[in-house]
């Protein structure tokens, strides 16, 4: 435990964006810039504090933990607190930086949007929620942030909810992540029952000291991981993330790089002491992560929508991070989270810039954009190389560390899956870049212009405004240098994060060479297949030669169809019909109506009692009093002498009694 320093005020990092949310919601429309400057200022300040906190964590190490009592019962103590270590501080920097750049970028991208102010409010709530999750020192507070992140993603994915497709995607995202959250909730409960604490630090130390039973650890860890599966879009709950592309592109960047999907990875890294204590849990994670990374990478290869390529890529890369955690190389996983945040935010914002210019998501309609959009082109290529794992870009260092760790720790499955994924990643990014930026521009004004509301002003695409390109340049720079902090042999990053009980991936030269070869091979194949491809009105997709596999991949390997048939349809038609017709109409309404009728009857009885009984007594007393007083008041004649007679008679009587008493 370390005291003092800027980390004492680290709670501001979460509070600032949350305050900005309230300010923007209530006053945003009346302030200049319609709320955007408030959000940028708040997130910028939070970023600076986060940066200071990270610097402090690097230079002095240790953990700053502060808390106040939230709820206290004899058997149940819940606190509200912060736990600021290197890992949390790193997340501050990543989340705030990406959020800040996304907000600056949105100035241009969302200009003139119908819910512009609301959009900025939500971005800040999203950021604040994620930071609440990051900073939390106990699982319940973490859950609060976790769920807030979920609801924000729902609201932002459905930002343009006027189109049914978008609101469907929002509902899908929410329900799918909720499915995992159910496990998360139960997991917290199991761990509380088993370890008697919500506190993250206490939980891990109790696990380490062996006072918690192995069953509790394994069950708790797997249940918590179920939450992470939902949030971090791991197989089989990955289906929501590609559909989440329905939201505005900057939101996608935020979700994919910083504020949502990394939450699952962060959770596992945060309580790595728990996960590393259970081999069963790690085995489950490694299998799921391996399936996820390969599965999603294959799907990414066949997408025509540029954002969907990136979405599946994110799923795949999250699998990478989870895999790293599962082989014990927690630092490598977090390091990949760090580098991935930069290049994936860059790629999404770049894709947004392209979509902004072309007004289409379909890569088959793009092509040759490198001539029209030089900045977007250059930065997108940098991001792609980083993602593909080409040295010296950021992605290479983190990816190589994971592959090496998988090999040296003897996880053959993860090792092979990671290499296959690396190849596929390089391939689909080469495909995306070639289709988008090389060749000739295929979107002719006649082709899609008639349905496009802005058709009059862009016969040809043009570069995006400076507010959009500046974040691209910053992120491109970070995608180049971001990996240098974790170079093998001088791995400063591992020292910053300090995760206990981990397996360090050593540098294995032949693996590094192998992963470079794989990456370059993937790129070469992608380039070869797509640079010469002819796209006309009858577009030919070279991958169609794969036949059934291609068609299955286009259908997302029927996972979504399976869910639709098994869960959605029965719920939609039978269960909801049952709930409506029988449960709601008969049972619930019947009960409500019966209660209503009963109440009316009781009311009538009470009314009769009240009017007949209670009122009768009250009125009777009143009438009696009236009668009596009517008689009595006649004695008040106003004649003084009559009063005097009464007085005299009274005195005589009293005197008589007294005299009688004396005898």
């Amino acid at each position, binding site marked *: 435990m370390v005291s003092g320093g800027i980390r004492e005020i680290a709670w501001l990092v979460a509070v600032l964006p949350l305050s900005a949310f309230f300010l923007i919601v209530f006053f945003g429309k009346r302030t200049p810039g319609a709320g955007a400057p408030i959000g940028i200022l708040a997130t910028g300040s939070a970023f600076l504090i986060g940066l200071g906190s990270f610097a402090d964590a690097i230079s002095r190490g240790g953990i700053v933990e502060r808390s106040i009592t939230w709820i206290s019962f004899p058997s149940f103590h819940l606190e509200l607190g912060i736990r600021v270590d290197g890992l949390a501080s790193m997340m501050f920097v990543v989340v705030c930086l990406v959020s800040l750049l996304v907000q600056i970028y949105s100035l241009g991208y969302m200009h003139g949007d119908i819910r512009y102010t609301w959009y900025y409010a939500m971005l800040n709530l999203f950021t604040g929620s994620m930071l609440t999750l990051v900073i939390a020192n106990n699982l319940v507070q973490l859950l609060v942030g976790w769920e807030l992140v979920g609801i924000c993603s729902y609201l932002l994915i459905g930002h343009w909810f006027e189109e049914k497709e978008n609101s469907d995607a929002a509902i899908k995202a929410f329900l799918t992540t909720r499915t995992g959250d159910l496990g998360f909730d139960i997991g917290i409960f199991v761990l509380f029952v088993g370890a008697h604490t919500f506190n993250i630090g206490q939980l891990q130390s109790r696990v380490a000291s062996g006072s918690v039973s192995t069953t509790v650890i394994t069950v708790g860890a797997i249940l918590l991981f179920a939450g992470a599966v939902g949030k971090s879009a791991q197989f089989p709950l990955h289906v929501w993330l590609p559909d989440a592309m329905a939201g505005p592109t900057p939101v996608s960047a935020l979700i994919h790089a910083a504020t949502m999907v990394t939450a699952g990875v962060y959770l596992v890294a945060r309580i790595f002491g728990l996960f590393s204590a259970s081999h069963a849990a790690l085995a489950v994670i490694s299998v799921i992560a391996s399936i996820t990374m390969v599965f999603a990478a294959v799907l990414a290869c066949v997408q025509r929508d540029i954002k969907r390529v990136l979405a599946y890529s994110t799923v795949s890369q999250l699998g990478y991070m989870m895999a790293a955690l599962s082989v014990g190389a927690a630092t490598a996983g977090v390091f990949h989270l760090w580098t991935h945040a930069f290049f994936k935010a860059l790629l999404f914002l770049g894709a947004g810039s392209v979509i902004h210019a072309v007004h289409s998501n379909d890569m088959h309609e793009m092509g040759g954009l490198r001539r029209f959009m030089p900045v977007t082109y250059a930065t997108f290529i940098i991001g792609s190389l980083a993602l593909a794992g080409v040295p010296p870009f950021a992605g290479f260092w983190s990816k190589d560390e994971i592959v090496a760790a998988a090999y040296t720790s003897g996880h053959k499955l993860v090792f092979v899956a990671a290499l296959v994924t690396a190849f596929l990643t390089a391939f689909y990014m080469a495909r995306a870049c070639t289709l988008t930026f090389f060749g000739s521009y295929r979107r002719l004004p006649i082709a899609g212009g008639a349905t496009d509301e802005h058709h009059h002003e862009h016969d040809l695409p043009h570069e995006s405004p400076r507010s959009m390109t500046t974040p691209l340049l910053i992120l491109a720079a970070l995608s180049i240098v971001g990996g240098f902090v974790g170079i093998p042999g001088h791995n400063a990053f591992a020292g910053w994060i300090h995760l206990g009980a981990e397996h360090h991936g050593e540098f294995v030269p032949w693996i590094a060479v192998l992963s470079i070869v794989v990456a370059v091979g993937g790129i070469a194949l992608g380039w070869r297949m797509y640079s010469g491809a002819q796209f006309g009105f009858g577009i030919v997709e070279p991958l169609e030669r794969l036949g059934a596999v291609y068609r299955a991949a286009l259908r997302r390997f029927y996972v979504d169809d399976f869910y639709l048939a098994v869960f959605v349809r029965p719920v939609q038609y039978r269960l909801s019909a049952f709930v409506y017709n029988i449960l709601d109409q008969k049972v619930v309404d019947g009960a409500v109506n019966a209660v209503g009728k009963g109440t009316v009857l009781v009311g009538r009885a009470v009314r009769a009692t009240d009017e007949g009984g209670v009122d009768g007594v009250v009125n009777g007393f009143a009438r009696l009093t009236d009668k009596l007083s009517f008689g009595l*008041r*006649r004695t*008040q*004649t*106003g*004649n*003084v*002498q009559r009063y*005097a*007679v009464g007085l*005299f008679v009274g005195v005589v009587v009293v005197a008589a009694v007294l005299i009688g008493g004396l005898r």
Partner: protein
Amino acid sequence: MPVAAPLLLSALMFAAGVYGVLVRRHGVMLLMSVELMINAANINLITFSQLLRDPVGNIVVLFILAVTAAEVGIGIAIVMMLYRQRSTVAVDDLQLMKW
């Protein structure tokens, strides 16, 4: 000391006062009847003071005389004001304070 005579006088005076208060209509006569009753009480006090050789009774009578003088002053003033306002001092004509 023979006390029968003064006590009999006192009783007669008191009875006369009571009769006056209850029967006479004239306000001034009422006040005078009240004076009769007070002085009947005074005679009683002096009588027993002498009988018991205790001077307190005499002293109290002196106080009562002083207070009575003030009381009569106020009483007469009320009767005068009544006469000015209502042109009568007959008490059975003054029956405003009734139901």
